[in-house]
């Protein structure tokens, strides 16, 4: 099912006099193609959960429209939208067994859709098998691990064969190892069912690793929509650049001056003719290459051994953060100088943003070939 959001806006009125109303979602436009796994990504309070609640119908938008396929569902109550939802804390009914929990939505069906006991049992079993909990049907939720509870919640959401699956922070209640495992699981289930799935997360790793498309949000506004790799390689503004990637991107105050890109006294690149202005230069940690004659220098604090790579922890007086991280191949880093390290920078790992608007500046770097 294709999902189309048109100028979707949600404004929460002020709770008390003197307080401002909160624009939780601001003019959201997007089309999610059928069968995609989409991540709504952003820091907490950016409106991603509100967006999810608007899509499932628990909240009514202040303005804008939601379409499932050609059907306008903006004013359709949640139960008629054909969505399955998994909540952050799973919300499994504690007094019911796993089987009863999964069967619960089926028992609500009325009229023509009503199922016989055998049909229900079949559907419950199919759903449980899909998430591989069919051996746990008699247990109570509190007798399950976090990961198992998560699976039960997904099975319950899927048992009515919804056309859209919504997951609110599906991995945040799990420990680190289980998280890796479960996100693969979610990917597998989504691939098997081919159901259009939207999940909310604040963890960019999670979003990048399993989704077909990510939507980066901030303060209720969509910043960028695209395939994970595209968004990573071409962040549209400084916020997106900073939000994606671990270790985070290194940001420096710099300038475009006489067709060169400068940080402090050092000219990193020659540029195709463009106007002079102050900018932010953001360099991905993997964009540094050790080079004795390189144009850019950092004050070394210490190298950090990671095994496969070496992370060079350094500082720079024009940097926005205290420390800078550059990731270098461990083999190349055998002969590190003591205090000042010089680098060549990979041009496609260097992003330039306007100092005031923080928007991306597309400047063409002229490789000067030394």
């Amino acid at each position, binding site marked *: 099912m294709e999902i189309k959001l048109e100028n979707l806006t949600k404004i929460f009125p002020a709770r008390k006099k003197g307080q401002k109303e909160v624009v939780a979602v601001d003019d959201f436009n997007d089309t999610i193609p059928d069968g995609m796994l989409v991540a709504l990504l952003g820091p907490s309070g950016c409106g991603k959960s509100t967006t999810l609640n608007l899509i499932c119908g628990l909240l009514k938008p202040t303005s804008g429209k939601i379409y499932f396929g050609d059907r306008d569902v903006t004013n359709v109550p949640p139960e*008629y939208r054909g969505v399955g939802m998994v909540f952050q804390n799973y919300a499994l009914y504690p007094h019911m067994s796993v089987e009863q929990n999964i069967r619960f939505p089926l028992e609500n069906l009325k009229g023509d859709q009503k199922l016989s006991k055998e049909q229900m049992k079949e559907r419950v079993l199919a759903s449980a098998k899909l998430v591989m909990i069919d051996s746990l049907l008699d247990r109570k939720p509190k007798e399950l691990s976090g990961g198992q509870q998560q699976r039960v919640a997904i099975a319950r959401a899927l048992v009515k064969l919804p056309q859209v699956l919504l997951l609110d922070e599906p991995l945040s209640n799990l420990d680190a190892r289980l998280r890796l495992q479960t996100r693969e699981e979610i990917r597998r289930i989504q691939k098997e069912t081919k159901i259009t799935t939207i999940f909310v997360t604040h963890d960019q790793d999670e979003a990048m690793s399993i989704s077909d498309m990510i939507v980066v949000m901030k303060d209720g506004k969509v910043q960028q929509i695209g395939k994970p790799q595209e968004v990573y390689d071409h962040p549209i503004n400084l916020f997106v650049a900073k939000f994606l990637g671990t270790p985070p991107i290194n940001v420096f105050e710099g300038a475009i001056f006489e067709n060169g890109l400068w940080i402090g006294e050092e000219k990193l690149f020659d540029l195709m003719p463009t106007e002079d202005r102050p900018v932010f230069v953001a360099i991905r940690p993997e964009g540094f290459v050790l080079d004795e004659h390189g144009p850019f220098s950092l004050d070394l604090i210490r190298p950090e051994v990671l095994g496969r790579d070496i992370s060079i922890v350094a500082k720079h007086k024009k940097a926005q953060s205290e420390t800078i991280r550059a990731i270098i191949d461990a083999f190349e880093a055998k002969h590190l100088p003591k205090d000042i390290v010089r680098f060549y920078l990979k041009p496609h790992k260097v992003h330039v943003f306007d100092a005031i608007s923080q928007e991306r500046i597309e400047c063409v770097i002229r490789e000067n070939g030394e």
Partner: protein
Amino acid sequence: MEKQNWKAFLYLLPALVFLGVFLVYPLIDVFIYSFEEGYSSASQSYFGIGLFNYEYVLHDPYFKQALINTFVLVIVTVPISTGIALLISLALNSVKKLRSFLQTIYFLPYVTNTIAVGMVFMVLFKETPYSQGVVNMLIQWVHLSPVDFMEGPWWAKMFVLCFYTIWIVMPFKILILTSALASVDEQYYNVAKIDGTSSSRIFFRITLPMISPSLFYLVITGFIGAFKAYSDAVALFGTNLNAAGMNTMVGYVFDMLYRDSGGYPSYASAAAIILFAIILTITIINLLVSKKHVHYN
């Protein structure tokens, strides 16, 4: 480990001493008295040992009346007060405006002086030379014959006592149930809503099981409280409850202890033990029933 145990007992000692002196010892004593025929606290003497006291009490028409009154009170007031309290709590939980104001209103009877409440009930039900009581006025408005609620037939007096009891126990129940309802995670309702669950199904399959521990607590304490009823009857019908035919079991025990200057501690003890046995039985039944229907998380 052993030293810690010793320390723990030392800390518990004050409580244990007081419990022993004021609770355990008297309990045992009452049990013994109940088998001693004609015990007199003045002379500390008795005639013999046997079941005579029980036999006397069980054949005493006043005891029978007290037993009937108490059972009627329990059977009528516990379900009705819990049910109404649940309805009011559900309503309170769903209103947004004026919620705390309404909660205060419903809680007021709890902090109101019993005497004041008694006076209000007098205005409602008692016939005086100046008025016939508000309720009788209303009854006459709809062209029915008035009833003497305070000194009239037994059912009328029982009605007043039940009404009074329900009214007096309601606020506490509402307080417990509103907080129980408020503590049910909203996500459960959200899930149910997305699944298209009807509101009656939400109530019976989700809300009720979720608040079942509180509800069960109220039923148990309600039963015990109603079995122990006494002061409410005194507030309405005065101290001579046997004459009014409105005595309760605790009232009977009390009367036996102090009637005729000196009283009959043996009969009182026997009656108290019977009351204890009844409450124990009912509570055990309650516990057994609850195992199936109460869900602790």
